[in-house]
């Protein structure tokens, strides 16, 4: 069962802080420890910043995963921006077109248990990340 807990609109720098704080609060309620809370919130901070930098606006949806075998959190970061031309390149460390360190995407993958990237040129990007309770 997947239960949506909150949706945060992301349009500016302040919304990045709001998104990561909300995710942290929900992660704590779901039962994640301090280190996982930090991992999840940091991952969402990276993805929310990508929305602001590349797509100007989008949203972050926070959901609780409650299946018999797997319980945890799922966060969907979605925008209608320009899309990612080459996902493989975007997932490689040090690659950036936005003047950053190029750690956001590969770093997020390392911090989470699962990461799915959907993107289409001119349509937008949807990145789904999951972390499961051990």
């Amino acid at each position, binding site marked *: 069962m997947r239960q949506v807990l909150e949706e945060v609109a992301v349009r500016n720098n302040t919304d990045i802080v709001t998104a990561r704080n909300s995710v942290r609060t929900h992660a704590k309620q779901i039962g994640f420890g301090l280190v996982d809370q930090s991992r999840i919130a940091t991952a969402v901070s990276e993805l929310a910043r990508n929305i602001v930098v590349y797509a100007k606006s989008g949203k972050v949806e926070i959901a609780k995963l409650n299946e018999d075998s797997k319980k945890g959190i799922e966060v969907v970061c979605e925008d209608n921006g320009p899309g990612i031309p080459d996902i493989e390149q975007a997932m490689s460390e040090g690659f950036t077109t936005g003047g950053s*360190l190029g750690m956001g995407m590969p770093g997020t993958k390392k911090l989470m248990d699962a990461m799915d990237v959907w993107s289409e040129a001119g349509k937008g990007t949807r990145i789904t990340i999951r972390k499961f309770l051990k």
Partner: protein
Amino acid sequence: MERIPVLKISDFLIVTIQVALDDESALKLQEDILEEIAKTKAKGLLIDITAVDIVDSFMGRMIRDIARMARLMGPPTIVVGMQPAVAITLVELGLKMTGVSCALNLEKGLLMLKEMVEAKEREERTLEAEETEGYEAGA
């Protein structure tokens, strides 16, 4: 926008980050600190991140850059109080904090900073002395 105070205590500048900083505030803080270094002629900089519970790649780079920029101006920087969860996340994220000196807490950080400043001043005195000797020998 959040404004973080930059305090001068004896020869040191002390910055305690106690709120979640957005990117713009973090950039402003970077500027404020460097301007304060120039204005106060501080000999060392200490950044306390005890209360910071999320450091992403932007914030991590910001802290690293402040330390590097301050060093270019002169004063050494110590970052103190990094939370265990933050340290774990930064390493897993892959962010290298090369060139940043860290200490467990404020007390240890201040001691370390004092030693660094003293070592730097000794080095400067030795250089000055060598220069003077050189002139005398050449005269």
